[in-house]
């Protein structure tokens, strides 16, 4: 496809979005962290993560995918004009895409994420939202009740999904006909059903680290170096592993790796 028209790419690999890459490693079976109090086991360069890194590294070296940062004006224009044939995304994608790539209405369809082994059903998670009540709140009880209502009330969660493209957190909305309605932006496909079934298959054995900000920054740095060609993608994952292990030790965690 890229040979036919060098202007278009299969998809985009966002170099500054480590959460995206993390979601893909999660789906491949990578379990980088096991946390037990202050004991942390770190395996950021386990086999599935290396598999994902090498796969994307090969695609990037063949230049069939682009490495532009996502959620920028150029990237939105690229999606709208069809420069990127696909967008690997999460459940908040459908309404978001119809908002930012309005000119390509009708040309998109949704499909489940390809799997590493045929017939597998593993999916993963990319980001999310929370509502938090801080300790400085002067009305913590009311604030907490409101936060709970926001994510529990049928009308509220429906609007959160339709107007704010947040994935529903209540099952009643998941089975609500308005959630499962065909979307004209996607040629009247019932897009949300794909995400609803995907949400059942997320492997929740994945654990996060207590210093995920640091891990993400380092992952972004290493992927950036790999994309510029200074190191290989596999080396990037090994560097990441070493940096995070050193960091965790210097922060006082008991590390096994």
């Amino acid at each position: 496809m890229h040979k036919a028209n060098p202007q278009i790419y299969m998809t985009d690999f966002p170099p500054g979005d480590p959460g995206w890459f993390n979601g893909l490693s999660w789906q491949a079976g990578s379990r980088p962290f096991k946390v037990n109090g202050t004991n942390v086991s770190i395996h950021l360069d386990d086999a599935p993560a290396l598999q994902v890194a090498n796969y994307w590294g090969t695609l990037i070296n063949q230049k069939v995918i682009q490495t532009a940062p996502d959620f920028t004006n150029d990237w939105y224009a690229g999606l709208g004009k069809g420069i990127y044939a696909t967008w690997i995304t999460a459940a908040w994608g459908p309404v978001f895409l119809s908002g930012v790539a309005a000119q390509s209405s009708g040309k998109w369809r949704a499909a489940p994420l390809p799997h590493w082994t045929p017939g597998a059903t593993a999916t993963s998670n990319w980001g999310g939202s929370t509502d938090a009540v801080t300790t400085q709140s002067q009305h913590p009880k009311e604030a907490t009740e409101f936060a709970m209502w926001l994510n529990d009330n049928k009308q509220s969660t429906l609007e959160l999904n339709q107007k704010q493209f947040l994935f529903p957190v209540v099952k009643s909305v998941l089975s609500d006909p308005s959630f499962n309605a065909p979307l004209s932006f996607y040629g009247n496909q019932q897009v949300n059903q794909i995400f609803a079934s995907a949400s059942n298959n997320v492997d929740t054995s994945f654990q996060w680290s207590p210093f995920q900000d640091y891990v993400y920054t380092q992952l972004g740095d290493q992927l950036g170096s790999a994309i510029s060609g200074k190191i290989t993608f596999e080396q990037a994952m090994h560097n990441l592993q070493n940096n995070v292990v050193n960091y965790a030790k210097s922060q006082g965690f008991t590390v096994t790796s």
Partner: protein
Amino acid sequence: MLPAIGNIVTWQYTGYNMIIMYAALQAIPPDLYEAALVDGATGWEVARYIKIPLIAPAIVLTCVFSIIGSLQLFTEPSIMSTLAPTVIQDHYTPNLYAYTLAFTNQQYNYSAAISFTLGAIVFVCSYIFMFATNRGRAR
């Protein structure tokens, strides 16, 4: 990346430097301009022989500010990091590194050490620059 950042910073501080030099230009006695007119000097020659030497302290001042500003550069790399994440990593400038250390890595002590070291380096660079330019002045 560096020319892009240089472009932004140049436009940002041109007005500021201009005001400093304009104020210094007001201190030049006007009879020097009349003498230059009598001597038949062109605009460029007036600038080169009268204005620049007499506002030399102001030019030194703007240079020192520019050196300090460059060493402390943070805003432009921070903005550009979302557009060019492969080029601008967390240690592109010392202040960006100190910021990442503090707010992402939670290594506050290390970040404070970097800030103080940067301050010391800025102090040394400014002093060297002013010493070098002062030596050239007739005493």
